[in-house]
């Protein structure tokens, strides 16, 4: 049985790791290469690197960062941010990414997912989905709804997040990185209802993102059908380590891979 994956996420801007709350108020969180090596040592199962640069110069730096991280990293690397074309995706793979996450560009032109899938394979094609809850007074039914947000959450698209995930999977996305805008950086836990709705709507794996502070939060994501849990702030701030989280999860019988630093839970 496949293990639950713990994925530290590096938001990288101009060659440095940054982190904010609800995508805003970014502060420095270290050197990406040092962070990457440290997280692998702690037992991370995969690493995610999101380029949050706003400028072309920043984007060029990000490619260099990917290559520098790849040189030291012996676990899978997902890279996202600013991927607009199949050539952008191929360039990131050449630099050392194993998977490419696509967000805004796929909303504008969903065929991009199919192009990446057909040329690079489903295992390289990740949909990054940023979803915000639609306020209850805007929803006539009793069940919650989410809409897709872009541009660091400053722009709401009106597109239903669950429908978009289903379309993206049918167009070739091999995995969905689902970030709750409402929960990002808050430490109050994942939006479990969002994760459960996504897990019910698609057959591809879901990576839970946005709001994790504790291993208990991570267990709620697993129970909601997620295959992997992503977190940033708690690892960057040194609040906890991947190894400590894994030891806690193992005590609850969560299937994890054997690592030196973490635990042999099998």
């Amino acid at each position: 049985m496949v293990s639950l994956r713990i994925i530290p996420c590096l938001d990288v801007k101009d060659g440095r790791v940054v982190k904010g709350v609800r995508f805003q108020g970014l502060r420095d969180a270290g050197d990406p290469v040092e962070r990457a090596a440290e997280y692998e040592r702690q037992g991370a199962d995969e690493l995610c690197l999101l380029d949050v640069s706003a400028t072309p110069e920043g984007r060029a730096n990000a490619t260099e960062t990917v290559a520098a991280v790849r040189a030291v990293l012996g676990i899978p690397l997902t890279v996202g941010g600013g991927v607009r074309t199949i050539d952008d995706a191929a360039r990131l793979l050449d630099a050392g990414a194993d998977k490419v996450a696509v967000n805004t560009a796929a909303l504008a032109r969903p065929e991009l997912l199919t192009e990446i899938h057909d040329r690079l394979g489903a295992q390289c094609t990740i949909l990054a989905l940023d979803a915000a809850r639609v306020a209850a007074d805007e929803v006539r039914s009793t069940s919650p709804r989410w809409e897709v947000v872009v541009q660091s959450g400053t722009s709401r698209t009106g597109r239903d997040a669950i429908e978009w995930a289903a379309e993206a999977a049918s167009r070739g996305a091999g995995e969905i990185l689902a970030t709750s805008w409402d929960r990002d950086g808050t430490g109050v836990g994942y939006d479990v209802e969002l994760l459960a709705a996504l897990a019910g709507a698609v057959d591809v794996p879901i990576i839970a993102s946005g709001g994790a502070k504790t291993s208990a939060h991570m267990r709620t994501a697993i129970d909601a059908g997620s295959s992997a849990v992503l977190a940033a702030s708690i690892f960057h701030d040194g609040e906890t380590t991947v190894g400590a989280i894994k030891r806690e999860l193992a005590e609850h019988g969560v299937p994890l891979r054997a690592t030196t630093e973490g635990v042999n839970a099998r």
Partner: protein
Amino acid sequence: MSNELVMVRTGVANVASIEAAFRRLGLSVEATDDAARVADATAVVLPGVGAFGAGVERLQAGGLGDALAARIDANRPTLAVCLGLQLLGSASDEAPGATGLGVLPVDAKRLDGAPRLPHFGWNRVEPDADAALLAPGDAYFAHTFCFRGANADALRREGWRVATTVEGEPFVCAVERGGVLACQFHPELSGEYGRDLLARWLKNARLELAAEVA
């Protein structure tokens, strides 16, 4: 025989990660689509490529497939990764009608038992007790098609040692015979487990070279 490690140039996917993994072990890998070099090199890597159909087409061009098949028949140091393993089989449901190298007498099928596909993540490798290179441990997978577990005995009859993994159903996650190692998982992305496996494969390749020189 030229004393080098080369990688068959098949496409774009995953090549940087394999190069980086060997570099961390102190070796540079050169990509090539020259069949003569693939035939002569001490050790050859066949990386995963995007899709079975495209991979087969690429190997049939310029005699690359023949060079690889000859190496594998002779048990010479050859490493196939992910789709590289599936390309060694006869066919795949991923691309009906496309013909693989046929050095393994099996066809790739969808991993239908898996609760979610693609099968992404770390899973347990259980090798035959007499495997020389493959060790038990956790490795990283990223695939949808596989050689099903029911094929294991047919492979053993051809002299292969087999490792299996269970994800909803058992499947063949790796085979080895002499200097040949073919893995459905990605050793280059499998942390310490993968690094140790690559190191054993390289050590084995060097020993064979020393024996030939002697």
